[in-house]
């Protein structure tokens, strides 16, 4: 079997492509782009939630949040490792993030303005991520699929914690309840936008489906997410900010108002509330850390007997 035929056979048999297997260049580069964007999102995603660690209202909540943000760094690590199996280096990936050549999820370009945002992110943003990512656990590329199994398990845990935290606020004082509702009002549409543009406008999708990287369309996943959230919002006693939201008996789904995709595109292109802040933060950490990385490399080289004077 030549490379192409073998690849097609593995895909057809719903088996996994592994790093040393032959694969089409476009498959490889598309996966690199997707995994890198996913990894970068974990890295940048540490910022909005990290913003509340120092102010968490109890020590227990502080520990939960700190552990969650640590998990995000860990997810970044697995995902970079998965991308590296495709022949790109960590340094190249980091540079692509810092230079803006590769993107991260636009959801992290919104600010966390109150403690309730931590809960809302857990519920809605992690919830949307899970809906997006669960199918990726069956993705045709082995290392990515395996990384996603671990990531999804942890994300589900975070999502339940976020929901529970928001539930406590929704049952709390009038101020806490207002804080929770305000957070949901602000995070609902950005979360819906996480599934990407409507199917009609989506690039990359058809080929991704054929290669079994992607398994459902953007709109299918978005609908799944809406259907999941509506009853959860009812239990919370919070209102999803969409007057058009109602059960459609015929479709067996909730009808909902689509997010403003023009806004999504503005944010993707760099003009969200926090794009500049998030990138400046990441660049600064990278730049201020340069001498540390150099020192570690110099020390390692000396230890390996490769002293250069």
């Amino acid at each position, binding site marked *: 079997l030549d490379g192409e035929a073998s690849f097609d056979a593995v895909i057809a048999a719903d088996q996994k492509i592994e790093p040393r297997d032959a694969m089409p260049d476009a498959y490889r580069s598309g996966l690199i782009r997707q995994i890198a964007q996913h990894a970068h999102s974990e890295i940048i995603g540490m910022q909005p939630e990290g913003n509340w660690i*120092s102010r968490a209202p*109890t020590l227990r909540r502080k520990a939960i949040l700190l552990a969650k943000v640590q998990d995000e760094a860990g997810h970044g690590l697995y995902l970079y490792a998965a991308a590296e199996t495709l022949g790109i280096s960590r340094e190249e990936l980091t540079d692509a993030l810092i230079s803006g050549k590769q993107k991260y999820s636009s959801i992290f370009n919104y600010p966390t303005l109150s403690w309730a945002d931590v809960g809302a992110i857990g519920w809605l943003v992690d919830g949307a991520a899970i809906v997006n990512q669960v199918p990726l656990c069956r993705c045709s590329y082995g290392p990515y699929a395996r990384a996603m199994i671990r990531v999804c398990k942890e994300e589900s845990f975070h999502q339940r914690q976020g929901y529970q935290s928001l539930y406590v606020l929704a049952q709390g004082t009038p101020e806490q309840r207002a804080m929770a509702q305000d957070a949901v009002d602000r995070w609902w549409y950005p979360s819906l936008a996480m599934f990407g543009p409507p199917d009609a406008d989506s690039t990359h999708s058809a080929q991704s489906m054929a290669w079994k990287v992607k398994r459902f369309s953007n709109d299918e996943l978005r609908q799944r997410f809406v259907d999941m959230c509506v009853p959860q919002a009812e239990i919370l006693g919070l209102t999803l900010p969409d007057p058009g939201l109602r059960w459609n008996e015929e479709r067996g789904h909730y009808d909902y108002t689509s997010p403003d995709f023009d806004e999504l595109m503005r944010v993707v292109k760099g003009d969200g509330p926090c794009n500049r802040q998030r990138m400046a933060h990441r660049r600064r950490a990278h730049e201020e850390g340069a001498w540390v990385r150099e020192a570690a490399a*110099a020390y390692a080289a000396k230890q390996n007997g490769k002293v250069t004077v």
Partner: protein
Amino acid sequence: MSELLALGDDALIAAQRLSEWVSRAPTLEEDVALANIALDQLGAARLLLSTAGDEDELAYLRDGPQFRNCLLAELPLGPARGDLDFAWTMAWLLLLSSAQLLRYTDLAASDDELAAGIGAKTVKESTYHLDHAHQWTLRLGGGTDESHRRVQEALDSLWPYAHELTEGIRDRWLALVEPILAEAGLTRPADRWQPEGGRTGRHTEHLGYLLAEMQSLHRAHPGAQW
């Protein structure tokens, strides 16, 4: 149990300082490691504070002069210093975790069952923290001229604060730390200035700002559940 409260405050304030590093570390691995050490400190703080009362009342409703942490713990690390000087943080962690390891070792040998249990758990963690600081001290001390200069400067500035931190365990502490400094090619600073006051509630001006931020949300909603 006032020693447990002091150790708990050390761990709580250290956790707060360390967690300021989150998303700002020089490598992703180090982001994970610093968050992990912060989590351990926070976990230790919760165990230790709980021996003295309600952990949240103690953390969120005391004013500065009621805190008993040593001054070292409250000194601004990279982010609050307006820089992200990792050498400063590693020198700080070396001094702090070595003293914590000794205190926790003593705790583990205590007759009090509760204290001994806390000690047994925290000894393991601070062994790891000290090892982490040790490895970085070697890397920075033996890495580049810049890293050597930075870690030596940080050590010189922080060393006086170890006086208060190591009260009663000074010799054992020196026996732990001096070999690490020698191994890293660093000069052990002289013992001169000996600032203290944390154990009696006379802190630096830095603690007030740390507490203002840490307690802000809790205090803004008196009596609320979270």
